[in-house]
């Protein structure tokens, strides 16, 4: 029990170190610029961590990463904190309730999130002006595609660093009881099989 707790602390320490690295990489452009697009490692970490953690962890981690992003952007204070909190919650719940945690799910969930994020980013940055659409295709969409590729690499790295079997999701009672029971039955059946 104690070693489990210690592993958990180590895991959080790992998350912390990865977050600091991602922050440095994102805001002091160290990552290579491909066709004018840069990756946003903090958002990628939110997606990956949320997929591996429960909804509370996903939310809080998303909020923290959003707050870091808010530090260096011109959006209203707290904008990215709320946005990333929602992204963390949605990714976590999707893996908890609908899909399994594997590469295909990652590409589906991550791709959708990155696409929505790029649209929101474009609306917040460029607004509804005539050139916004052009900028969306020449910059924001490229960033989304680049991020998706980086997400895949980061996911594999994450699995290599933290092990392929980490999953600490625990039902917290926020889901409908019927759904929860189904989920638990599924888990039991899988274990028996």
């Amino acid at each position: 029990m104690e070693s489990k707790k210690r592993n958990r602390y180590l895991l959080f320490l790992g998350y912390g170190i990865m977050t600091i690295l991602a922050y440095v990489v994102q805001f002091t452009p160290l990552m290579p610029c491909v066709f004018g697009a840069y990756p946003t490692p903090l958002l990628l970490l939110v997606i990956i961590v949320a997929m591996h953690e429960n909804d509370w962890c996903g939310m809080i981690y998303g909020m923290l990463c959003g707050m870091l992003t808010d530090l260096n952007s011109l959006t209203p204070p707290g904008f990215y904190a709320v946005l990333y909190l929602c992204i963390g919650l949605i990714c976590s719940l999707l893996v908890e309730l609908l899909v399994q945690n594997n590469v295909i799910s990652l590409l589906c969930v991550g791709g959708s999130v990155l696409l929505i994020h790029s649209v929101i980013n474009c609306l917040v940055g460029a607004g509804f002006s005539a050139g916004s659409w052009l900028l969306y295709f020449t910059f924001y969409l490229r960033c989304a595609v680049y991020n998706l590729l980086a997400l895949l690499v980061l996911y594999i790295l994450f699995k290599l660093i933290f092990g392929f079997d980490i999953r600490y999701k625990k039902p917290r009672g926020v889901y409908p009881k019927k759904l929860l029971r189904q989920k638990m039955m599924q888990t039991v059946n899988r274990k028996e099989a």
Partner: protein
Amino acid sequence: MRFFFKSKRFKVILAIILILSLIGGVTGVVLATAPQSDILGAIIRPVQSAADSVAGTVGGFFDQMQENRAVLDENEQLKEQAAQDRYKLVDYEELQRQNEFYKEFLGIKEDHPSFSFEPAMVIARDTAQPFGTFTINKGSLAGVEQYDPVITSAGIIGYIGQVSATQSVVKTVLHPDINISVLDNRTRDSGNLTGDAALAQSGTCKMIYLPRDNAVAAGDLIISSGDGGVFPEGLMVGTVSEIKASENDTGYYAVIRPVEELDEVDDVMVLTDFEGQSHLAE
């Protein structure tokens, strides 16, 4: 004793001594060298050389050890000295860079004595947006306020969009939200400089509201007019790249290349106060 002197052995020894003395005497006079010495020398020399070599090696080993220790100490001292010199060189280069930076601003200060500068350094860049937004290391604690102009020695590059206690985010001239009242330095045609989503990626912005009969031409210098009180009058903003007809009205707009490549700006000055400044933040 008498027996010894009369013995055969004594006679032989005496004969040998006499012969050797005779040979030595004769050759010493005639050849100036003694052959017995040569013979003995020939036998002894290799042994002597070997002994000398061994002695030299053993002695040299201890000497070498002492020398090595001295060389090591000296090496350490030199290394320390080199490290200190390197630090000094870095400091010197930094000072030289700062000196150049301040020297460039001296001209602006001489032309505009009312300007109050706050030097700042770029510490982060927002790469999620293509408008060159960056963060500087000075905030409200250093007297920086929202809407304070941010300039380099070349001219205006933006204003403070958001300010916190220790850092500020700069909205650059590429951002669509920015609006600077500008005029053509040659023709005095006036207009508004603003960012454009379609132009941002090429690192240019546009000067809008140009009248139909304007005389603005490519290569003209664009300066701030000082209207509105956010930016001071007479600072460079950019140069005209081309003139285009506006799609939304009958006027024209000029594509402007800013005074600096915004991705490469490292040191900036925040104009915390100047004559005619309207404190919008208040």
